[in-house]
């Protein structure tokens, strides 16, 4: 506690001296990074202060209280940074971490492929070493914000003659080069939040290989674990209450940054079913008086309450230093799927035939329709329900794996014809 008090005093003194809403966003974040307040939970050697999660949370809370813009962290930036911190070379840390924190570099995640979705380790994007550069050929998909990204974390195959998990390598890949084509991918809910990325003789310097050749799967596991923990976060205010009315250059630039960063995620709350709308709509339409709808609504609220509480204790556990985050993330993600389906069911019951309509004139200015057409994504994106259940069964319940059909050299494994 004393410790926290000291931090609080030091932080506020620093902020008093350095903070001004008239900074440009990059100017301000440069100060933040130099002052060690951009990512205080990171190691001292890399812009941080080795803070505990509790100490970091205090800093975050103080920023929020004073309405101060923090380091850039939206989207895949955080995945890249944490992965680089865990597995990167000194050189990589020096080159990549700072522009991530200042927001100068945007990142995207180049993992999934048309032929390998659930089976991420079945990636068949090809990386071949020619001199000191790897030449990359292949196709990635579900790449959020690829068209804004400067770099991508890329999983590609460097060896086809070893078992599939052993032939992958992980690269820090420059998106701003010829040989990279980004095409938007439209979804059934009419949004186009994702992209396809085509790489044709693109290249990456061998010093941007991370974790060593053939170690890509191990590195990717870190990224995936971080991703599962935060799969549903989407804060339109970036954590700052009343951001839309704050005055100053730094706020203007921050709002612009958020707008781009969050644009692909506007439908994410709908994807999760919007439990928050269920009760108000049931009240407003009178459906709350229908005994059957009451039951279905009560089931929804119960699951949501349970999931919220379970998530809170998972967070508490993880703050307390436990390392069992990954299956907890799977439980939360699976809960989100079940809840979203039940929410869609309740919204349909409440809407009646109005559920046939969409657009601004329809229920909740089209939000209900967007829910009904978006919930199918929650049980797919970021690892399908089926994959989450495998993880829960194997890691929480310690049930044995199925017999595998994909051992032996990757070259010999049966896969989708387009991959071959």
């Amino acid at each position, binding site marked *: 506690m004393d410790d926290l008090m000291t931090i609080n005093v030091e932080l506020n003194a620093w902020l008093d001296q350095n903070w001004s809403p008239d900074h440009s966003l990059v100017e301000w974040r440069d100060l933040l990074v130099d002052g060690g307040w951009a990512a205080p939970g990171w190691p001292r050697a890399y812009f941080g202060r080795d803070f505990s999660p509790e100490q970091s949370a205090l800093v975050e809370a103080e920023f929020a209280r004073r309405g101060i813009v923090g380091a850039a962290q939206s989207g895949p930036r955080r995945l890249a940074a944490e992965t680089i911190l865990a597995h990167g070379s000194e050189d990589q840390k020096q080159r990549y971490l700072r522009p991530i924190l200042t927001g100068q570099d945007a990142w995207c995640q180049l993992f999934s492929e048309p032929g390998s979705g659930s089976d991420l380790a079945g990636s068949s994007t090809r990386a071949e070493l020619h001199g000191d550069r790897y030449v990359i050929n292949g196709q990635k998909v579900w790449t959020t914000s690829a068209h804004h990204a400067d770099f991508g974390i890329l999983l590609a195959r460097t060896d086809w003659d070893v078992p599939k998990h052993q032939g992958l390598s992980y690269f820090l890949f420059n998106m701003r080069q010829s040989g990279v084509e980004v095409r938007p991918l439209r979804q059934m809910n009419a949004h186009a939040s994702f992209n396809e990325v085509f790489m044709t003789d693109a290249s990456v310097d061998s010093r941007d290989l991370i974790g060593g050749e053939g170690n890509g799967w191990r590195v990717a596991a870190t990224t995936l674990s971080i991703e599962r923990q935060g799969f549903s976060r989407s804060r339109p205010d970036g954590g700052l209450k009343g951001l839309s009315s704050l005055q100053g250059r730094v706020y203007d630039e921050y709002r612009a940054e958020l707008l781009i960063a969050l644009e692909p995620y506007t439908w994410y709350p709908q994807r999760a079913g919007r439990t928050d709308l269920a009760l108000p709509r049931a009240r407003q339409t009178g459906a709350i008086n229908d005994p059957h709808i009451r039951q279905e609504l009560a089931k929804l609220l119960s699951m949501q309450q349970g999931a919220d509480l379970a998530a809170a204790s998972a967070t508490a556990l993880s703050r307390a230093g436990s390392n069992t985050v990954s299956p907890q993330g799977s439980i939360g993600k699976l809960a989100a799927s079940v809840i979203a389906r039940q929410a869609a069911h309740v919204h349909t019951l409440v809407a009646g035939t109005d559920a*046939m309509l969409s657009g601004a004139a329809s229920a909740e200015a089209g939000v209900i329709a967007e829910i009904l057409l978006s919930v199918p994504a929650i049980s797919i*994106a970021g690892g399908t329900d089926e994959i989450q259940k495998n993880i829960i069964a194997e890691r929480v319940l310690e049930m044995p794996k199925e017999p595998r*059909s994909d051992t032996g050299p990757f070259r010999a494994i049966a896969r989708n014809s387009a991959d071959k």
Partner: protein
Amino acid sequence: MTTEFNDDQQQFRDVVKRFFTDKSPVSAVRRLMAEDGGYDAEVWQQLGAEVGLAGAHIPQVYGGYGFGPVELGIIAEEMGRTLYCGPFFASSVMAGYALLGGADEVCKHRLLPGIADGSTIATLVLDDLNQVDQSGRGLHGELLASAHTGSDAGSDSQQGADRATDWRLTGAAGLVLDAQVASVFLCVAATDNGLGLFLVGRDEPNLVIEPLEVIDPTRKLSRLQFNQVRAEKLGELNGAAMALLWDQLSVVLAHEMIGGAQMLLDSTVEYMKLRMQFGRPIASFQALKHRCADLLLELELAKAVTRQASHFLASAEGPRYLPSMAKAMASDTYMSLARAGVQLRGGIGFTWENDTHLWFKRAKSSEVFLGSPYLHRERMMTMIQESDCG
């Protein structure tokens, strides 16, 4: 009483299936769903005048083919399978059945032949698509005062006046199917003497047709507003007629849904056999196999009840709640298959480019169209309570 098809019916299905497979490929569905009108006039002309499907269930005396609900169900299943875009349900089924059940003989002779050969596109205006038998609360018809002028208020002349075109409709219907292409509207409206069936021309002044944004662009809806719109009264609809109408529409829709559901099951399983993950086709994963088996079971039960419901409409044999039972079961199984169709394809199933979402949207829209499963189950239980025997 059996739900098996005889040879004639099986041959009829083959013809119908070939027609829709040829004429309603998914490329056509995608093209038409993006258009305002939403149907292909040439295909409609073939369907109506040439193949004769538009009037399949309309008696021969009214220009149709006189087939029964079983054959109509076969047509609907094949339409559902291919997502055929055209005003069949609005004109042939909804308007056709409404005329058969509610119009006077002379009006049937006048109006049904055009519907039967597809030359007239009609639709049915109900102000309550949740509960068809609650219609008439939003749309009201009154006889112009002038129509009475000069005649005694005696019952005979009253009746004569009732047949006249001097009616005016006022009110609104929030959801009207295929109004964007209908040339005539058959409207169910309340009068001082119960529900009446009215004819309104598309070009009537004071009729406002407002196309709506919909979740399923293969099923286009409009909102209609009536402000003293001139209408012709075609006949009367009592409670039994409205209940029968609801039954008939529900059963055809149920057939359409099981056709779509079957297509989803077939295409999804087919995809799973080709899609490799972890070195094997995903169709070999036990959890996915079991889900497909569950879906097959759900579909088989819904199919059996839906087909039985057609037999019931044809023969009046069996419990009278079969139509509502069928609508509820078909809705549920279609949604189950729609969800599974997306899920079992993974990410690709959620894309616009993949066709699955077309059926998903149809399933979602069909779930509530003409009453949700919940309402139909409630209706079914009410019927059980009303009848002496279970």
